[in-house]
């Protein structure tokens, strides 16, 4: 291992690798073995909890992908839900095709909703999705392609800040409207559902669910390392410089457009993979995944955890979604108050999120309160 790679991976950072390993063991060894305990055992992790954890892992991956562009490049995309959903649709299309003749209408190639709409043959863009590897390639390629086009258009004309947020929001909104149409050939309103198997594994079996959970955990770990690699590299330095003073970076001769575009595309790919892992676990993908509200919620996961750190978004996704699961069960009418309040409290009082709380408290103890409110008008 050359010195460059070793530096990039920060192989010497013992504390990081210890923590990373501990979390890995917890997720990949402890949870599955607790799940294997007999039902009724005090420490048993029931199957539904495994699926729930798997879902959270996908959310965490999505949050991580947003943090890469928002936390490190200052690009707040409110359209990451679109990349997530596109990845999910690609995976959903593969699983639809693998149902084959076992659908309600029993057609050999056409999914049920197409038979229902009286379609005679498969549209061209459904071709190839009977192969898992093609679908997997699409999970990566479609979000990457969209991110490339949108990012190229936006970054080239130096659309930054809120304008970029609004454009990406409009993008996911437009996609939502499009996917709601039956004529699009993606199942319209109902989306894709009734999946039977993935790569020949029966999706209703607990073992397969555990497998999907494991895959999500592994993927999150890999993505975490990839992001860490990018952030730690020289390119990561440029990214953060762009976040802090974009025009200065331009004047220094760097191509801010290319660097941001790179981060945006990688981020979209990660979001697409998160969606592809998410859909088999929840068993459905429909256009509401594109809704702007979903994308903006991802931003709050990142903000709660602490943006600009890699650990933050993962913690934030788990914390917010855990609270959501608990509160929508206990007092559903309170959830939106809580979520709304979270948006306000985090932006006003916890600018560095959970991860930054400790530092914030330390500063305060030393008698040097962190300025919560930056007086920067007309900036």
């Amino acid at each position, binding site marked *: 291992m050359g010195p460059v790679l070793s530096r990039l991976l920060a192989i010497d950072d013992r504390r990081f690798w210890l923590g990373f390993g501990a979390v890995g063991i917890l997720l990949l060894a402890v949870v599955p073995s607790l799940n294997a305990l007999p039902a009724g055992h005090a420490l048993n992790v029931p199957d539904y909890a495994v699926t729930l954890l798997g879902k959270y892992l996908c959310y965490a991956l999505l949050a991580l992908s947003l943090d890469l562009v*928002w936390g490190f490049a200052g690009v*707040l995309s409110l359209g990451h839900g679109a990349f997530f959903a596109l990845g999910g649709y690609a995976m959903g299309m593969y699983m639809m095709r693998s149902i084959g003749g076992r659908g309600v209408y029993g057609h050999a190639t056409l999914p049920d909703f197409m038979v229902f709409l009286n379609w005679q043959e498969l549209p061209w863009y459904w071709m190839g999705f009977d192969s898992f590897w093609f679908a997997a390639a699409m999970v990566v390629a479609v979000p990457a392609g969209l991110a490339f086009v*949108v990012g190229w*258009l936006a970054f*080239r*004309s*130096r*659309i930054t*800040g*809120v*304008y970029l*947020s*609004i*454009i990406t*929001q*409009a*993008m996911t*909104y*437009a996609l939502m*409207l*499009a996917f*709601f*149409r039956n004529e699009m050939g993606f199942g319209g309103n109902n989306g894709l559902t009734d999946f039977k198997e993935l790569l020949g594994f029966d999706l209703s079996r607990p073992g397969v669910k555990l497998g999907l959970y494991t895959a999500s955990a592994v993927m999150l770990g890999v993505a975490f390392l990839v992001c860490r690699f990018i952030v730690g590299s020289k390119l990561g330095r440029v990214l953060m410089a762009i976040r802090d003073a974009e025009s200065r970076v331009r004047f220094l001769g760097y191509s801010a457009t290319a660097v941001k575009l790179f981060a945006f595309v990688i981020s979209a790919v990660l979001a697409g993979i998160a969606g592809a892992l998410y859909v088999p676990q929840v068993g459905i993908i429909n256009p509401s995944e594109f809704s*702007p*509200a979903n994308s*903006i919620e991802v*931003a*709050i996961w990142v*903000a709660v955890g602490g943006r600009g750190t890699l650990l933050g978004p993962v913690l934030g996704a788990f914390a917010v979604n855990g609270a959501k699961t608990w509160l929508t069960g206990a007092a559903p*009418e309170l959830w*939106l*108050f809580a*979520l*709304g*309040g*979270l*948006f*306000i409290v*985090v*932006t*006003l009082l916890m*600018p560095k999120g959970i991860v930054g709380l400790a530092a914030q408290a330390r500063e305060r103890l030393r008698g040097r309160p962190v300025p*919560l*409110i*930056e*007086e*920067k*008008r*007309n*900036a």
Partner: protein
Amino acid sequence: MIRALALLAALLFAQPAQADAFSEAVAGLSAGGFGEKIKAVETLAALGDARAVPILRAMAEGRLLARPDGALVIDGHDATTGQPAEAEGALAVSINNRLRSAIQGAVGRLGLVSPDPAERGRAAQAVLDSPSPESAAMLRKAIERETDAAVMTAMRFSLAALDLGDADPARRLAGVAALADSSLDPQVRGLLTRLAQSDSDAGVAGAARQALEGAETRLRALRIAENLFQGISLGSVLLLAAIGLAVTFGVMGVINMAHGEMIMLGAYTTFAVQEAFRAWAPAWALDFYLVAALPAAFLVSAAIGIALERGVIRFLYGRPLETLLATWGVSLMLQQLVRSLFGATNKEVANPSWMTGGIELAGGVMLTWNRVVIVLFAVAVLAGLAALMRWSFFGLGMRAVTQNRAMASAMGIPAGRVDALTFGLGSGIAGIAGVALSQIGNVSPNLGQGYIVDSFMVVVFGGVGSLWGTLVASLSLGVVNKFLEPYAGAMLGKILVLVFIILFIQKRPRGLFALRGRSAEA
């Protein structure tokens, strides 16, 4: 009643010769054979005497009795004179189906001479259902006597339509000429098409074809006019939703994701005012609840807006992304608050009577009053805002603070208060928009969500900070949307417009009407 009518009619048509012919024809109704009866009915219809209508109706219903001495009695009164008469030994005048339909036609045509204009108008239309040379003759006579302009038009129209089936080509030609003006009516177009395709006379066929072509052109023009109106109407809705944003986002640069909820609050205030009026106001005042709802909605939304500015946004100036997230949180809370207070179901806000209905233009194009009022209202609100910003002291302060905050403060303008009031103004205008939107759509907690992306698009497209840009952008987006709809469908049209805006911003990142000079570099 019948007696009184008959008497009245007798006074009106007191001409001995006609009276004679009339009683003769009435007497013929009880003739031996059905053929003769039919002839008597036709005669009665041709005489055009309104007195015949009750007699014929009675006959069709079997209430017309014939005494052995030949006199006819209806419900104990003589059929001709209306005097009380004995019905001893009288038998109902027998009828068959052929006779019944003859009676029907006769009654229909006799409606043309009814004293009631509405009845005459109906009859003029009804003759088209059973065209015959007799009805044409009858119509001609009726037109000469007609005094009511609307009924006259209807009669002329029916006569022309009848003429199309006339054996005489000259008559048909005259009919086509007369109908060319009203060729938007689908029934008329059907008649003309038949004529254009299969008339034996080349001249008539040509004239019909020409009339049809003219109709097509005018129909196309009407469709365009209709699309234009609907587009302007949609544009004015967008404009209303976006004006408030043009203040908060455009002038102050604050990304307020709760803007849609300010609109929603305005709509719910309208609902509350309406309920209050229903409970306590006198009946005549019900129609004017909107007048009270306007200031109420403005105040509610403005108050919440000011509270939002002082409580949250103030701390986030210069950090637009955080502002976006915090105000999104506010919007979620406001939605849930309204849902908890009013329930999740749609609330019904009624149009006041002066806003219901509309004017119908030719060819089925309808301008509904609520849409027309909203277009005018949107323009008025924009003009009011522009005037406020241009001429009032508050407007001066607002512009000063946005252009150079430090200098404005140095000149003694309380910048913080101006911020709060400006934000309150923008929010209040959103509330007013809510009053208008409650008149054309559902009032639900999600009302604002549907407008937020669109309004941001309008402001960005028009150019941030430019009221003119907002006006032009909203109207053009509305019209383009409506013109795309027939070709692409509502959703695809919307998608195309969004894509267009995204591409447009590539070319002109600062919108249609970009600000120049000092305020552009804020």
